[in-house]
């Protein structure tokens, strides 16, 4: 065996500027829409303007006659080939998902659903022709409200007989995660006990639009031996397999490439109707085709996120000790299932108990169909919802008991000395230090000083009131142990793959199955490998996102890349060293056991004899003088399947100002101390935290996808869908504690979603804390000026 000391950390922990930035920021790179192929045809989609209707006729004649139009297809033309869009995680073995068609055949079920496909010689003509396609609709009543949908007055998928799909239950006792009373029993007991308190609240997680920067685009080239698809996707590997399975194409005849991809936030974790239809059209035409969406098309038809009603109950002793938590969700699936639709809210089941020692816990999620765009993964996927539920209810409990919210949390959280700890959701948290993160955060925030200021402003009746919002969170990252996914009915494993190729000149190619779309893998992976192999950072190239280059992978989502994919890279580098040690021993005429590897050099213990890794690589390339019985290659592969999730945590504090005269909310100060374990590149971590905060704050204050009574999305452009910009956000104070994860050799936990998960409840708690003394109990998200002003008016009116 190799006797490697831990690699010298020259790169790990270094705040390198990302090597991919220059090309990504200038856009001078391979976006899918930049790809042009000889003879390429262009596709434009005709989409339903109505939410629910029977299609009684489609007339494509005028469109077909436009010069430059090559073909126009309706659902009837393509139905025999289109099969169905797969759902990879139906969470319930007994229930089958409704057939999710790529193009509607006789019924449309959401506004934005594709009803016809136009193929033309150029994109402008294709677009012109969409306006000439005439579709007759016979309106059906749109089902838009989740709770009304459960009444089944109109059933969206008649073969199912109901708009309710399934109910997913979790009970900590049944699951063996806790002993003692069930959550229902504990809540009933608390209700009957004068020394206990039960707090029950209802909140809405509004519908959000992922709003990635690069609109989606697909190019399909059917002219080679393999059919090649370029797609602006997060999941080229998943897409290849799913495409093969759903269209009956042999997988080895498919190559999928995700070139540079401009963001996804979960919105490109999908197998889309457009990818299926582009494939069908390319095959029919035997020519390359391209489809690129417009921004409005993207907002209307790309999957949406969140959209739940949450009924949350907490029981506690009057001294503040929590005794039970129950989370009941009603989740809007939209009209169909995408890749992970029903699984998204269910992620929350396991992390629901969060940082707390709930002795009893229950979770139940009811999945409902509506005539809206399907929902699916959006940054955090299930965990922001669960974290909101628990951090809001803990705030309410603190208020009811008249306790400081941080102190009440500390009373109930898992102490640093109690790790590893199995929560009531059955997850075993390997490590954590909530005390350290909280101590650092409160100091940076000046918690005591701001509390004093809050008091003063209340006393002086200042028109601008101050509130302090708290959120102490944990989440599960590093999707995921395969056996666990299997037990939950997922259609895939949770491993990740890496390969390292040692080139003759000593340069290194790292192949990863993670598929970066803006995260900075190329830089981080290079840093890891540079340290591990002792080669210069510049000598490492990271290859990804092409099933021909990186044939194995589970792609990027769920903050899995570094804990899972990064670990695969580490293990793979170790294999390279293991192989190289044998060669070095041979070259140095020493016993393998006497070889030491450090900082890129193999040396014989206790001597000054040694060879560099580059020399070993070159000797292997030549193979002139090579040990017998050993394969002349140092190239290695590794597939890593994590033993456990990783559990980042942190303490987020928001000082919120509310102008009580106008209702305007602004963030005076935002401090977060995140513990994402060991840090490979602090600059990338910082970037992920900032972006995550912006999106979480956006849910709290700015964003909401609105539908009218007809089921039309009314704010599907950037003019009306109010995304915040840097000008709407404060300068964040971000800091870290580093409690390494024990489940992977890097000690990393994942940071892609932390900011989004933690910040939403911190902001809302802060808004309420500023105006609760005025009688306000609740403000729905997003907490717009108008909503806050009305809440104050209503509360004051009620008091008069």
């Amino acid at each position: 065996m190799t006797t490697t000391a831990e690699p010298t950390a020259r790169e790990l922990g270094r705040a390198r500027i990302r090597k991919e930035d220059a090309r990504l920021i200038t856009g001078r790179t391979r976006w899918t829409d930049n790809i042009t192929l000889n003879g390429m045809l262009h596709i434009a989609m005709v989409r339903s303007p109505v939410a629910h209707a029977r299609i009684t006729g489609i007339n494509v004649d005028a469109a077909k006659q436009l010069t430059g139009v090559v073909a126009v297809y309706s659902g009837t033309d393509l139905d025999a080939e289109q099969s169905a869009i797969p759902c990879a995680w139906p969470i319930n073995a007994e229930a089958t998902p409704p057939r999710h068609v790529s193009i509607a055949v006789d019924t449309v079920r959401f506004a934005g659903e594709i009803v016809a496909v136009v193929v033309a010689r150029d994109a402008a003509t294709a677009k012109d022709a969409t306006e000439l396609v005439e579709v007759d609709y016979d309106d059906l009543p749109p089902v838009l409200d989740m709770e009304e949908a459960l009444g089944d007055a109109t059933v969206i998928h008649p073969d199912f007989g109901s708009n309710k799909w399934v109910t997913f239950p979790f009970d900590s006792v049944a699951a063996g995660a806790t002993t003692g009373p069930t959550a229902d029993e504990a809540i009933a007991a608390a209700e009957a006990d004068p020394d206990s308190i039960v707090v029950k609240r209802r909140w809405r997680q509004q519908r959000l639009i992922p709003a990635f920067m690069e609109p989606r685009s697909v190019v399909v080239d059917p002219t080679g031996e393999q059919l090649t698809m370029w797609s602006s996707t997060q999941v080229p590997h998943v897409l290849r397999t799913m495409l093969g399975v759903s269209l009956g194409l042999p997988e080895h005849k498919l190559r999928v490439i995700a070139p540079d991809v401009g963001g996804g936030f979960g919105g490109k974790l999908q197998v889309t109707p457009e990818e299926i239809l582009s494939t069908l059209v390319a095959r029919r035409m035997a020519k390359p085709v391209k489809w690129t969406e417009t921004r409005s098309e993207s907002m209307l038809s790309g999957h949406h996120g969140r959209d739940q009603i949450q009924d949350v109950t907490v029981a506690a002793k009057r001294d503040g000790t929590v005794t039970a938590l129950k989370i009941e969700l009603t989740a809007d699936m939209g009209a169909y299932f995408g890749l992970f639709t029903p699984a998204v809210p269910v992620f929350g089941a396991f992390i629901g108990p969060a940082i707390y020692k709930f002795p009893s816990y229950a979770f139940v999620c009811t999945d409902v169909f509506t005539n809206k765009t399907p929902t699916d993964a959006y940054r955090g996927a299930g965990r922001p919802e669960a974290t909101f539920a628990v951090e809001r209810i803990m705030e309410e409990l603190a208020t009811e008991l008249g306790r400081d919210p941080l102190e009440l949390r500390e009373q109930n959280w898992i102490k640093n000395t109690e790790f590893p700890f199995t929560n009531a959701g059955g997850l075993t948290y390997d490590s954590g230090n909530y005390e350290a993160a909280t101590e650092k955060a409160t100091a940076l925030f000046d918690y005591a000083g701001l509390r004093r200021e809050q008091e003063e402003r209340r006393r002086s009746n200042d028109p601008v009131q101050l509130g302090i919002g708290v959120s102490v969170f944990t989440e599960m990252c590093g999707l995921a142990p395969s056996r666990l996914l299997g037990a939950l009915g997922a259609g895939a494993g949770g491993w990740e793959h890496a390969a390292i190729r040692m080139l003759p000149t000593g340069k290194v190619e790292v192949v990863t199955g993670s598929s970066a779309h803006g995260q900075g893998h190329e830089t981080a992976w290079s840093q890891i490998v540079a340290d591990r192999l002792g080669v210069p950072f510049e000598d490492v190239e990271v290859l990804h996102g092409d099933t021909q280059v990186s044939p194995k992978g589970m792609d990027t989502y769920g903050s899995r890349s570094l804990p899972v994919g990064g670990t695969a890279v580490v293990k793979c580098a170790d294999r390279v060293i293991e192989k190289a040690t044998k060669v070095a021993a041979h070259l140095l005429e020493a016993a393998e056991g006497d070889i030491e590897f450090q900082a890129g050099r193999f040396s014989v213990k206790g001597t000054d004899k040694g060879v560099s890794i580059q020399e070993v690589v070159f000797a292997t390339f030549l193979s002139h003088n090579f040990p017998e019985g050993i394969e002349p290659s140092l190239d290695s592969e590794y597939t890593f399947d994590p033993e456990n999730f990783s559990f980042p945590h942190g303490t987020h504090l928001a000082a919120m100002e509310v102008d009580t005269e106008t209702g305007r909310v602004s963030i005076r100060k935002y401090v977060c101390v995140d513990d994402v374990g060991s840090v490979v590149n602090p600059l990338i971590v910082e970037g992920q935290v900032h972006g995550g905060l912006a999106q979480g704050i956006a849910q709290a204050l700015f964003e909401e996808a609105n539908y009218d009574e007809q089921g039309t999305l009314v704010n599907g452009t950037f003019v009306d869908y109010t995304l915040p910009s840097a000008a709407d956000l404060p300068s964040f104070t971000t800091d870290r504690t580093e409690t390494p994860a024990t489940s992977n050799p890097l000690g990393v936990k994942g940071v892609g979603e932390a900011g989004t998960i933690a910040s939403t409840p911190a902001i809302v708690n802060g808004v309420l804390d500023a105006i609760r003394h005025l009688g306000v109990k609740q403000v729905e998200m997003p907490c717009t000026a108008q909503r806050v002003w009305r809440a104050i008016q209503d509360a004051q009116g009620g008091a008069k």
Partner: protein
Amino acid sequence: MIPAKFDYVRPSTVEEAVSALQQGGEDAKVLAGGQSLLPVLRLRLAAPSLVVDLGGLAELRQIGEDGDMIAIGAMAAHHDVMRNELVQRHVALLGQATETVADRQVRHRGTLGGALAHADPAGDLGPVALALDAEFVIAGSGGSRTVPASEFFVDYFTTAIGENEILTQVRFPKYTGWGSHYEKFNRTAQAWSMVAVAAALKIDGGTISEARVGLANMSSTPVRATGVEQALVGQAATADAVRAAAEHATEGTDAPSDADAAADYREHLARVLTGRAVLAAAG
């Protein structure tokens, strides 16, 4: 997104532009900075057969002094207006309002004339032009005519500019030495106004001797808050006096209700923001 097909001309004189419009007929559209027109074309809310680009008319970018007026060419970009020294000295309110328009990129492309001709009731420059009694110089086949601000704004997206006419210049009287402030309230930092108040005051010896107040997005056109103006004149600029005057802010308004704000909330905002704008203008 791709606009429908159109023809395009880029004339080099106002006369040529006017005759191009005439030949283009009903379907011709003028292009200034394109910040409002291009989105409309790309969303296919309009499909003109001809676009007449005023980008070649350098003369329409001039900002100059003309007696006791400041004359601003219709094609002066927002950025150039707000940075102009004459504007800052004599029509400070216009500069202040222009600074709140959209973001840097839009302010470099969008023009004063384009914004006023577009006449979005949420626009920030309409209430300024109205409150400050600007004059609009409009060129047609028969030469130029001048329209006072009180007659320029007709309805939603509708002005006194006729078919085949071009707005060439906007003229502002000088308000040298006046205090002014533009108070804008929006959903996100760089968005259109939910409600905004433009205020300019002349204060002599602690007393308000003249007042100009205009409101954005409180009706189908910008609104001049004459009730507020009258209530202010002769008052000392104290918080109480200003607040009392601001109660008149909703007179003559017809506030719209939309997803951002219902009418009653807009009315409330108009009063609060008027108070704030006037107090800030008083310094």
